């Protein structure tokens, strides 16, 4: 890193940089709305969105159809994402690590995983509804299924690319098997593990909405679906924005959490 780059990276402008695109976008939106280029029933004015969002988040229930529902919707959605993602990690991470290290397991799994991976997640929806009915379990199932693949595949790639010399070095220092796995293999694979977890969490949100579009009574996806049927386009947009914000925050939180708990995440990923 040159000195010049250092200067840039420590300035206040650097910190504001991620906000530039959203700000420009909203500005363009305001201009478009003010000039009435697009009818409001297709794209409401940002102020109206803000008002709807405010009512949704901070309003008293009873003020309107969506007032004050934010907490319960987002809580439900977070719970579903949490359960589904946790299941994906619980299966995907250990399986991925093992298949990355043991060619037998890798060979055993490869065809199955790649075939299942080729099936778009949405095609599981009808089957899941038959199996689990409409509601939480279908959503959690879809989230877990979708998040499994990126977690598994990246864990496998990460475990595979750990320099064997590091494992040899550990073995000669008396650190192998279980200890070696935690002290060497997992940290060595950390950049890939991180990528897998982040991709998995991201896709969890996508499948959450898919699961919730099927007629559950609450959740962020349910709000969007409900709003569509009632023609409340402002609420659709509010839902989209809230999912974007929560998705972004959960990604940051995941990264911060990993960095807090693992040196290898702090220093390598």
């Amino acid at each position, binding site marked *: 890193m040159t000195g010049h780059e250092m200067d840039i990276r420590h300035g206040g402008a650097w910190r504001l940089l991620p906000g530039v695109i959203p700000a420009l976008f909203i500005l363009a939106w305001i201009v478009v709305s003010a000039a009435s280029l697009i009818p409001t029933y297709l794209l409401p004015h940002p102020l109206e969105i803000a008002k709807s969002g405010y009512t949704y988040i901070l309003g008293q229930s009873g003020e309107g159809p969506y007032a004050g529902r934010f907490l319960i919707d987002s809580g439900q959605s977070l719970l579903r994402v949490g359960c589904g993602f946790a299941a994906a990690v619980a299966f995907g991470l250990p399986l991925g690590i093992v298949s990355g290290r043991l060619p037998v397991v890798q060979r055993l799994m490869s065809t199955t995983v790649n075939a299942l991976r080729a099936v778009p997640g949405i095609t599981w929806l009808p089957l899941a509804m038959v199996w689990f009915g409409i509601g939480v379990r279908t959503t959690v199932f879809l989230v877990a299924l979708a998040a499994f693949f990126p977690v598994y595949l990246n864990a496998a790639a990460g475990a595979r690319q750990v320099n064997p010399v590091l494992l*040899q070095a550990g073995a*000669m*220092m*008396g650190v192998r098997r279980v200890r070696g796995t935690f002290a060497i293999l997992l940290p060595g694979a950390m950049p890939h593990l991180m990528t897998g977890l982040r991709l998995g969490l991201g896709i969890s949100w996508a499948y959450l909405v898919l699961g919730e579009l099927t007629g559950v009574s609450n959740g962020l996806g349910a709000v969007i679906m409900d709003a569509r049927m009632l023609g409340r386009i402002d609420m659709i947009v509010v839902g989209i924005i809230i999912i974007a914000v929560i998705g972004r925050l959960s990604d940051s939180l995941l990264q911060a959490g990993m960095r807090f708990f693992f040196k290898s995440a702090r*220093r390598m990923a």
Partner: protein
Amino acid sequence: MRLQLRALASPREKPREKILEIAGVHKIFHGNGNFLHVLEGIDFRAEKGELICIVGRSGCGKSTLLKIVAGFMPPSSGKVLLRSRSVEGPGPERCVIFQEDALFPWLTVQENIAFGLKWKGRDKQARVEEVERFLGLVGLNEFRDYLPGEISGGMKQRVALARVLILKPEVLLMDEPFASLDAQSREEMQNLLLSLWQELGHTILFVTHDVNEAVILADKILLMSKNPGRIREEIRVDLPRPRSRDSSAFLHFSRRLREALRA
């Protein structure tokens, strides 16, 4: 004259005991119906505190031999005995300094050095003191909080040395550890190794293709030939220590060894 040099060569004169024995080691690699006789009938022994250099051209099987002694691969036949006990698999009594960078990139210099001790269940205070001591021995006090990616190749090999020396191995196995360093760092590392060796008295097997390096370091040089790899000659290096890289005796010895290697 020869006798006199011999006496000077072992300032730490003490009764020598046999520590490592390589007995009839063969290694054959199989692949696609072919087989390759990499090592044939390797026999030698190392006394306690002896510094042995294994010299040979690339492909003579010297690294394979080291891996077998380390326990990373088994011999096809024959035995490696440490204090008369057969070696099965790697262990902290036979530590390796690898040619390539084998430090844990997510651990600082200090944490890398402490790595092996961490699992040994010693009390924390004693551990901290040990790490402190070995940081000092390899001269890395000021770099303790750096990550491997932030230090030079020479420093990395210092860390590699410290992290195994701290485990008090009986035998140190070094696989061309300084080959990728620039000439000056290499010389520094050779000097450091010699002073650590004189202080701590390890038994060292040092693989190299660099004749000068072997002559500067070794008590004994094992000259290997290839196809199949075997020990062609065992040469005692009777030069007094500390050895000077430009003394005529040194140059003479190096030249002889180079000729022997070419033959």
